[in-house]
């Protein structure tokens, strides 16, 4: 929202220096995005009178002029404009000044004194375009010395152009977002009221916005007005004005528009835009003679109907659109943009002025659907008050009379919508309610004054009960809390007492799930792995590359990028997708892990929301193979993680295809389920299928882990410490090598050893695998180091031998093991 400080000053007093004012606006109204000094671009723009004008001796199209620019002697300027002639008032840009329209450009156009085809020219005479007033560049700007300016300054040679037309201005741009619920602040009048309020000054709206106008009726031109969409068009006002003269606006109006961020077009259109920028209420002017059937109205569009708009494009409509129609069909998209055919041009003699109100939700949808974001949309989609149309229409009619002539040629139509238009509800609130929520101790009188400053009507009863009636332009005051906001803001949030809440104490423990994830993160990073975060969304090829089915995944309907087509089913594919770039970047061996969520379309909870499956997954890769399969590298990191989490789980070969989510990328012959003794599957560790490695360009030496966090949580909660008291006696160690058939799994042998060692009563025996030797394909020899400790005595060699023998016996019996 561009706010002209000079326009604000037309409505209220501003005593503060600009930086203090901006700080106050920031603190009490809304974020200031930009402050523009408009005046500096007009430095060197001076009003002048052309005294003489002769043909250039050496150029047909140029004239040599003597001008009175208020200086001691006339100044000579060469000018190429067709409309330059003696006697007119113009704007002269003096040598050394910058052409205002190029101000702030990378290469601003700075004027000088130089010869043009042998004749000295000092500075230049400016066109409207060069002065930043619209697009007109056919001739120089002519000033009317009799024109009334707002500052009532006299238009005379030597006067500063900027001062005369109020262009010595500061434009304060306030974030639109702040005003989402404040349609009134999309007009400078509304912002001026707030600026008065935050300065604790009483604001009084101008008479035209205070006194409800009573419209006369004119005659001469027939028009039928119909509101056929009463549900979404709460109000539709229109009037015909005949015999207007369409031409460029007087300079004061052009300057006013430019200061408010508009662009001069012609006097009639300029009035509608100016009034909108002032009040927040959009208006539209139609060429009466282009309206077919002498009709104008609003209705719901028919499916497939088309309309040609002012931007030169054609739009196909649906029954969700509101159209403005004449006797034959659409002439505009209601509240969004006017039509091309009925546009007001220099040929227009009679105009219809429309001042309507549209449903904010309907406008928002239309704007989104057609991709049209106009000044009217910005205002209507905040929900303008339908109570202001009379005031605004009356002002616009009066201004058109002033700048384009003409007279009312019809009645002033007022087609109401379905609901009668209600004044804002009043809200009853107690002073203490307000003070409690702000931590303040304001008196009822102070509260009342703050509200009355911005034209609320306040009735006080029982000393502290306030009945607050919002003015007609406010649509946001419905609850006592809305009044609290108003008071806090107008009083000043920086003055609120800063005190910490007083409360009872209780320990804040972190949930088991969060603690578990913290532990996982710590364990894996200590193991040398790197935690990554990757997107929750993936491209179809990432899913497919890991053997997953995109049909199982939730699909994003509106992603800007194809990389974000699907919610991921698990994390591993995203991790695989990140390996190649790191290898290429010179990292030879690394492990990436992520803790995150997978979603599966078939997996819904009792609230019919997708179940969020929390996972921790890891990929290990090395560019150069190392001794032993990559599987064992990943398994080693996994084993440490399980130890750190005090989880007792074993690795179980995957003998056949098994329905387990996340298993698709794994090579089954080199993967294992991570399973608890209770048979709960925690996840999978394994190498990846060739096709998966190929797809993601992974090094051959790669292995991955996937673990379900919920399963880990269930198990880790029940596991208790496995501490063993220390013995006073030394432990004895001895190695044992057992040769078994290659068909015997390590886990089978270990189970046998565990069982045999349980029977050794008060002697505690632990063992560590030292080596696995495969001399031929049929056999493997496992060497274990057994360490035995007794709590009652120092172990003898005989006792140790006995243990070894019983272990060997058990292994021979179960697996045909031979001690070697």
């Amino acid at each position, binding site marked *: 929202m561009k706010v002209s400080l000079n326009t604000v000053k037309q409505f209220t007093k501003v005593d503060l220096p600009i930086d203090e004012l901006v700080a106050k606006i920031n603190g009490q109204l809304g974020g200031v995005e930009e402050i523009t000094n408009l005046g500096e671009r007009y430095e060197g723009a001076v009003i002048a009178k052309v005294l003489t004008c002769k043909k250039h001796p050496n150029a047909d199209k140029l004239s040599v002029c003597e001008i009175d620019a208020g200086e001691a002697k006339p100044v000579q300027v060469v000018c190429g404009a067709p409309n330059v002639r003696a006697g007119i008032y113009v704007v002269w840009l003096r040598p050394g000044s910058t052409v205002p329209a190029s101000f702030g450009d990378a290469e601003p156009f700075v004027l000088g004194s130089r010869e043009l085809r042998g004749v000295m020219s000092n500075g230049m005479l400016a066109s409207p375009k060069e002065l930043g007033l619209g697009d007109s560049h056919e001739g120089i700007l002519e000033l009317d010395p009799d024109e009334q300016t707002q500052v009532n300054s006299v238009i005379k040679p030597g006067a500063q152009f900027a001062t005369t037309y109020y262009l010595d201005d500061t434009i304060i741009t306030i974030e639109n977002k702040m005003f989402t619920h404040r349609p009134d602040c999309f007009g400078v009048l509304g912002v001026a009221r707030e600026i008065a309020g935050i300065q604790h000054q009483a604001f009084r709206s101008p008479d035209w916005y205070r006194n409800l106008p009573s419209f006369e009726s004119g005659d001469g031109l027939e028009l039928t007005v119909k509101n056929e969409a009463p549900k979404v068009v709460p109000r539709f006002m229109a009037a015909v004005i005949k015999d207007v003269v369409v031409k460029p606006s007087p300079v004061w109006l052009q300057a006013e528009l430019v200061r408010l961020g508009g662009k001069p077009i012609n006097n009639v259109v300029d009035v509608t835009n100016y009034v909108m920028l002032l009040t927040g209420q959009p208006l539209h002017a139609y060429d009466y003679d282009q309206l077919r059937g002498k009709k104008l109205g609003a209705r719901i569009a028919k499916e497939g109907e088309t309309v040609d708009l002012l931007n030169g494009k054609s739009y196909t409509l649906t029954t969700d659109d509101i159209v403005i129609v004449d006797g034959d069909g659409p002439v505009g998209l209601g509240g969004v943009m006017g039509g091309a055919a009925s546009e007001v041009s220099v040929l227009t003699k009679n105009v219809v002025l429309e001042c309507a109100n549209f449903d904010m939700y309907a406008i928002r949808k239309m704007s989104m659907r057609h991709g049209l974001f106009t000044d009217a949309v910005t205002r209507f989609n905040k929900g303008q008050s339908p109570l202001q149309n009379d005031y605004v229409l009356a002002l616009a009619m009066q201004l058109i009379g002033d700048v384009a002539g003409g007279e009312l040629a019809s009645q002033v139509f007022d087609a109401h919508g379905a609901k009668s238009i209600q004044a804002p509800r009043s809200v009853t609130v107690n002073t203490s309610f307000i003070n409690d929520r702000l931590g303040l101790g304001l008196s009822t009188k102070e509260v009342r004054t703050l509200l009355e400053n911005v034209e609320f009507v306040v009735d006080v009863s029982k000393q502290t009960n306030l009945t607050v009636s919002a003015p007609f332009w406010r649509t946001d005051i419905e609850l006592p809390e809305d009044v609290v906001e108003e008071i806090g803001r107008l009083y000043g949030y920086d003055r609120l007492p800063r005190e910490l*809440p007083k409360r009872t104490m209780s320990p804040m423990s972190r949930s088991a799930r969060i603690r578990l994830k913290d532990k996982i993160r710590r364990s894996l990073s200590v193991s040398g792995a790197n935690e990554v*975060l990757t997107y929750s969304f993936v491209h179809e090829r990432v899913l497919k590359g890991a053997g997953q089915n995109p049909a199982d995944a939730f699909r994003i309907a509106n992603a800007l990028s194809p990389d974000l087509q699907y919610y991921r089913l698990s994390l591993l594919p995203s991790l695989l997708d990140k390996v190649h770039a790191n290898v290429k970047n010179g990292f030879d061996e690394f492990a990436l892990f992520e803790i995150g969520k997978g979603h599966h379309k078939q997996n819904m909870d009792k609230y019919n929301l997708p179940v969020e499956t929390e996972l921790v997954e890891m990929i290990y890769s090395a560019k150069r193979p190392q001794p032993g399969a990559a599987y064992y590298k990943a398994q080693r990191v996994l084993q440490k993680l399980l130890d750190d989490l005090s989880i007792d789980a074993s690795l179980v070969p995957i003998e056949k295809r098994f329905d387990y989510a996340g298993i698709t990328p794994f090579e089954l012959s080199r993967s294992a389920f991570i399973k608890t003794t209770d048979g709960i599957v925690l996840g999978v560790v394994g190498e990846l299928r060739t096709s998966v490695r190929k797809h993601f360009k992974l090094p051959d030496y790669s292995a991955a882990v996937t673990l379900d966090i919920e399963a880990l949580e269930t198990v880790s909660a029940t596991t208790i410490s496995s501490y063993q008291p220390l013995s006073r006696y030394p432990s004895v160690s001895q190695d044992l090598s057992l040769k078994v058939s290659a068909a015997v799994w390590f886990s089978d042998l270990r189970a046998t050893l565990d069982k045999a060692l349980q029977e050794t009563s008060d002697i505690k025996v632990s063992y560590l695998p030292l080596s696995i030797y495969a001399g031929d394909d049929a056999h493997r020899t496992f060497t274990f180091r057994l360490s035995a400790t007794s709590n009652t005595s120092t172990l003898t060699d005989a006792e140790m031998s006995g243990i070894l023998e019983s272990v060997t016996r058990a292994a021979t019996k179960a697996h045909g093991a031979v001690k070697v």
Partner: protein
Amino acid sequence: MTKLADIATVRDTLLARLEKLDTKSDILKAPELKQLYGAIRDVEPSQRAAFGQAVNELGNEIREKVASYSEQEVSLAPIDVTAPFDVNSELPGLLPSENGSMHPLRQEIDKLSNIFERIGFRIEESREIDDQEHMFETLNFPKGHPARDDYDTFMTIETDRDGDQFIAPAHTSTMQNRMLKKYRAGLKNDEAIAVVVPDRVFRNEDLDARHEHTFYQFEGIYVSKGVHAGMLVATLQQFLQEYYQKELEVRVNPFYFPFTEPSFEFALSCPFCDKKGCRVCSHEGWIELLGCGMIHPNVLKAAGIDPAVYTGFAWGGGVDRLVMMKYGIEDVRHFHSAKLDFLRQF
């Protein structure tokens, strides 16, 4: 005359050729196979059935062979997955511990969580996919509300039971209703609802050095009796002073959110230059850090809490921004890049 013996010859030829083919499925287009199929109708009626069956069997065999090639995808030799290391090998070591790292965003979330726990807030987590009821409706954004435009939300094709598309939450406030309900019972015993939700959120934006579609927020919620707007400012100031380990000035600017009234934008004096002006604060001396406000009575009502008795405040701030400012990270896209040269610096 074509005979059964011919089929055996063709079989040998095709199998030999299959071994050599790069694209195994090309064998199915072999002219010999086509000829055999074509020959069926020329065989004497008495032998036609047997011949046809034999040709079909050959066709099936070849097809299965091709299929098994694609399934095999060069299967690796099985290993003893129950063993701690490979044969003729030894127990592999872990990766060097000094190479390990935790993600800077997660580290920061841990730090924030610790501070908030110390001042009495519980830490909870958010969702990555939610319904519109939690993202909008219970937060006082009715359907069609213009403020919904401010959140460029990702939506799924799939819909919830109300027929509304699921969404990727654009703010952690999507958890507000659940948190208020979860802890409201304590209000009767004068236990305040005090929760912080740090988690992942999404906005459907184009990526550049300053814009990410995936980022992290921390949501704060505090509800009790007698809570006023000054307490919100004081609580956040307390947190930030602890976080930056120094005295800071803070200020609030009015703002608009549908789920708070009044709403604020919260700024702190730049902790990196003490308001002198530096690159981090764009030489403003102030950093706009988060949005906050007093929880809207409709939001409390939607969670079954009486706004006449209880009041509260809420805020939502960005974690990524804190981390970027802290380390001077130049590009927000690094966070989700999984680049080791980035990650190993933390």
